[in-house]
């Protein structure tokens, strides 16, 4: 069942031009380093048994790191049918870390995949009530057609990568 969900998520991600890496918690550090271009900046992930401690990712974020990092790493939730990230803003800086660097790597627990926008909104309703009341539904890389043709990489990331922790 869960494999199906991750497959669907990966296929939606692919449609949004987002690469997907699947990993078990024990293999996370090595897998992440393969995905990340240094310098990289991150915020604590808050996922049991998964940490940025033994990776190339630097934290806490500073304005210089935000400007100079190639990659920002944060935890996200996922929306399966659109291949979207749900980025919950927090005091640690998840929002700017997911926004400023050229590449955003979102780390998502398989158990944090929501089927669709409807399910996501109902989960967010509870989160909002609990005070976690800022979230960005982000799908793919930032883009504009304002100069006459579609160009990726505007104010937000130019590329996006998902790392799904399959056993969490």
């Amino acid at each position, binding site marked *: 069942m869960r494999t199906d969900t991750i497959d669907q998520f990966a296929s939606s991600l692919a449609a949004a031009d987002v690469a997907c890496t699947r990993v078990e918690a024990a293999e996370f550090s090595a897998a992440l380093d393969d995905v990340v271009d240094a310098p990289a900046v991150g915020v604590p992930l808050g996922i049991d048994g998964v940490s940025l401690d033994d990776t190339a990712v630097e934290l*806490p*974020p*500073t*304005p*210089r790191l*935000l*400007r100079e990092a190639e990659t920002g790493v944060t935890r996200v939730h996922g929306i399966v049918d*659109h291949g*979207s990230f749900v980025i919950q*803003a*927090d*005091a*640690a*800086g*998840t*929002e*700017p870390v997911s*926004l*400023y660097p050229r590449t955003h790597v979102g780390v998502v627990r398989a158990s944090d995949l929501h089927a*669709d*926008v*409807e399910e*996501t*909104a*109902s989960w*967010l*309703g509870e989160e*909002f009530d609990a005070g976690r*009341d*800022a*979230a*960005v*539904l*982000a*799908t*793919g*890389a*930032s*883009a*504009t*057609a*304002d*100069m*006459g*043709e*579609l*160009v990726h*990489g*505007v*104010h*937000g*990331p130019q590329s996006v990568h998902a790392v799904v922790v399959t056993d969490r």
Partner: protein
Amino acid sequence: MSADRERKAAKIRHLLETEGDAVFENTTHVNAGRYETNSHRDDIDELRDAARAIKEDAIERLPELVETVKESVEANGGEVYVADDAADANRYITEVTESKGAETLAKSKSMTTEEIDVNDALADAGVDVTETDLGEFVVQVADEAPSHLVGPAFHKSTEDIAELFNAHFDPDEPFETAEDLTQFARDHVGEKIVDADVGMTGANFVFAESGTVALVTNEGNARKCAVTPDTHVAVAGIEKLIPSVDDFPPFAELIARAAGGQDIATYLSLLSPPVDSPVVDFDEPDEPLDASTDDREFHLVLLDNGRTEMREDDDLRETLYCIRCGACANSCANFQHVGGHAFGGETYTGGIATGWEAGVHGLDSAAEFNDLCTGCSRCVDACPVKIDIPWINTVVRDRINRGADAEFDWLVEGLTPDADPGGVDLQKRLFGNFGTLAKLGSATAPVSNWLADWGPTRAVMERVAGVDRRRDLPEFQRETLVDWFEARDPLPAAGDADREVVLYPDAYTNYVLVDRGKAAVRTLEALGVDVAVAPCHESGRAPLSQGMIATARENAERVADSLDPHLDSGRDVVVVEPSDLAAFRREYEHLLDDDRAERLAEHSYEVMEYVYGLLENGADADLLASGGEVAFHSHCQQRTLDVDVYTEAVFERLGYDVVTSDVECCGMAGSFGYKSEYYELSVDVGETLADQFEAQDVAQRELVASGASCHEQLGSLLPQASTHPVELVAPE
């Protein structure tokens, strides 16, 4: 041509030359994207119903939602200010920037801030404002107004923008490509965000219960403006309030599809400011971000500026459901060709702009462009909240007519055959009374045709009534459809048929294109139907298109009076002209008692729709003319009513090989293409259709068009004559 008509014609001519190509490319691209994306889901109409219901409820409960959001934002630590008008909003906003000692402000795209001209107010207060949406930035650099709700620079091509930026920024290497321009603008604007003292955003939605601002962007600039500086000002019309995040899903699914054919926008930011995210102070580059030392400020400015009055106005209220996606503009043939610098008022552009401009800036601003809506109704299908945009345009046109000064109103009113007041412009009155004119023209044909076509007559018609002399006029027939029908001997089968219909003869079918009416009668009779023909009364379509609602209502009542006895005796109503069917099915609900309108709508059919039904129910297709190669242009309102498919299905059943056009409208749109101020635009729109057919090599095909106007337009643009589909399939 009168001076005012000449001025309008010159403005349109100029925009067709300078901005038309870029607008056409951009709008038709996103319009095609909308069709493509919607085709992958089968629940679009359910989502639209859900979104509409949420907006209806929210506007109904608006005062309560305003109170709720005040409480929730204040509980979050922010401030809410409800501004009565633009000046009030600007005063509050500049007080905020002054209290912060702000010198710089980075702003994400917001039409509401365009409505109040906040950039001017901030400049007067000494604040340097940078637009960070790249399209809006282009418009800011060019010192122009946005030409589209979503694509402010839709009127500029890559080359135009390169020329602008090369002149303005004088780069070492001149910019050429969209990539060059995007990179430059991103970096330039990005630095302004980093340096900004205040961030300003609009809001696509505001969730009252949690005090959440929802921002929809693809670039990510709104995210940066909202969270980078320590002060965030969000400006939103009061109509943006919806109860809670629970109501968000249909809008999240619809807004980017409607706007440009994306499944979902790149960023849907739901922020309940002041946010927990740490302020990013680039002046202290190595200090770790630390939200605990931040002193964030948030101001939500809710703008009224006429919206409360709109809410109380039964006809304008729907405007407040608008989510500003621009789909009405993208699906509008006139807009596609001329763009928002013609099809727009002080702030807003496209079909829905009439409602917004009338509501927030007044009738004068709406009057300038309102006639560019031809009522073709293609936007009705495009609107994600199902706003009846043509009706809003009709109502506002009616109000403009009534507001117009006219001397001797009492005299004019006594002499005109309609029910509208004397202020109605002569051009509108002429076209609005087409039925009366056609009756007179037919009664005196062929003299009326000779006279109408006579050079001096055309000159007077052009000067006095703005009827462009480059158009051929309809040729009135001496023998009307009704006369022809009455003079015939009844068929031997009369009275024995299983089905009985009454054919509604619109003024064109009765007085001008009589052959299509005869073909309809022959076809129906061949398929075993007993046909009666109703008297020819104007349906109201003509006066409606001129904003003459009182006359249209009078027309509708007369038509209903003449059809009611037939409906009582169980006859179905068959209509040849799609725009009249659209009047019966859509506009009559505004003009007649509900029961009456509903019964007529339910029992009215377009003629080819009816033929389809007969064939499906066992009528013998062999009795009709079959086979051949056809180029078919459906009518705009026929497509909106989803009845175009029946014509195609009948053709297929009868073995025709068909190519179809897919332009939104032929550009003629009843009287529109005759009007001297709009003639060139009408031809420009029509040429897109002609080009499409020529590209499909239709020279050897039979050209068929369902609408009388489409027939006129095609006749003027393509060498071959066109007929109505029923003329093609009718037995000899």
